């Protein structure tokens, strides 16, 4: 998983980090999309802050801002990284450490998701197999009660007692099936 791709490390966030500081990315490989970098001030205006929408609405009415070009940085993503009011400046080493940690946690989360998916599939398969087994039990019970037992009893009534009693599971099915 050397070339791990995640939207957090593509597009806008990568451009932002690349412009803010000179990060030493020798160990961490990012796969970025081809898109032109945007100026810092313009990007900050596009940050997702719904709690300020009402306050800025009145300001916008007075002086409508120029419509920004639609890019990946301006479009809304549900899982967008939350923007802090005061963004902390970090050293390249610290940023690298943070990125490594983030990648590791993302990988861990992905592996957990895969484990969860596997468990769900195993559960579904086991349940299907159990239902197949139940159907077979019903059929075997019917076969035994309606055919084998009766035929054996009719052919030689004395030998019916040689069957060492009706097995418990077949007896349970027998009572329910004979009612039907």
């Amino acid at each position, binding site marked *: 998983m050397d070339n791990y791709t995640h939207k957090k490390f593509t597009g806008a966030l990568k451009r932002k980090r690349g412009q803010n500081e000179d990060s030493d990315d020798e160990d961490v490989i990012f796969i970025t999309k081809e898109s032109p970098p945007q100026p810092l001030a313009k990007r900050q205006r596009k940050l997702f802050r719904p709690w300020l929408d009402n306050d800025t609405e009145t300001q916008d009415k007075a002086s409508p801002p120029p419509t920004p070009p639609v890019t990946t940085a301006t479009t809304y993503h549900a899982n967008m990284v939350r923007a802090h009011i005061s963004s902390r400046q970090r050293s390249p080493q610290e940023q690298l450490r943070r990125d490594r940690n983030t990648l590791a946690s993302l990988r861990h989360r992905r592996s957990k998701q895969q484990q969860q998916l596997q468990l769900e599939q195993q*559960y579904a398969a*086991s349940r299907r197999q*159990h239902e197949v*087994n139940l159907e077979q039990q019903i059929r075997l019970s019917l*076969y035994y009660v309606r055919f084998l037992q009766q035929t054996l009893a009719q052919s030689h009534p004395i030998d019916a007692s*040689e069957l060492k009693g009706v097995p418990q599971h077949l007896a349970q099915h027998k009572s329910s099936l004979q009612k039907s």
Partner: protein
Amino acid sequence: MANKRLYLPLESQQQHTQHHDKPEQIDQLVALELQHLKTHYADEEQRYVDQMLIENPVVVERRSPAVVSSPSATSIPTAQKSRSHGSRDDAQRQRAESCRKSRYNNKIKKAKLRFRHKFVCSQLNESAGVLDYMREVIAQAETQLLARGFNRVALERMRQTFGVNQCNGSADIMDQ
């Protein structure tokens, strides 16, 4: 008359049995009974999961102490800036609460899946064991029947009618 019945040939007994056990009727009976068993299984599974959740409660601790907002505690903001701060804090609190709820629900969901998986594995083991035992008993009965001169082809036909010739696939699942 009773004695005559004892000496009836097996072939006529086969015809008598076959007349009343058509494959469609068998399938209908099987479908009905299977539906009952499936419902019973679902109830048992739900009961097991609920019991396990009670015995192993899921706890999600708060990362920060909960702030209980009441009208008397908060002072009436006069400036617009303090109002925006208050609404921002409310939004943050709301978000934190919804995050916490989401984490809790996800934990519950995962725990339920684990318990359901445990339950189905135990049920599958049991049903596979029961199936093997039933097949043994039926094999014994068939051997006896064949020993008394019952026609093997007729026996195979009856097996087809009742649909008991399905192979056992439970070993593949249990080996996983």
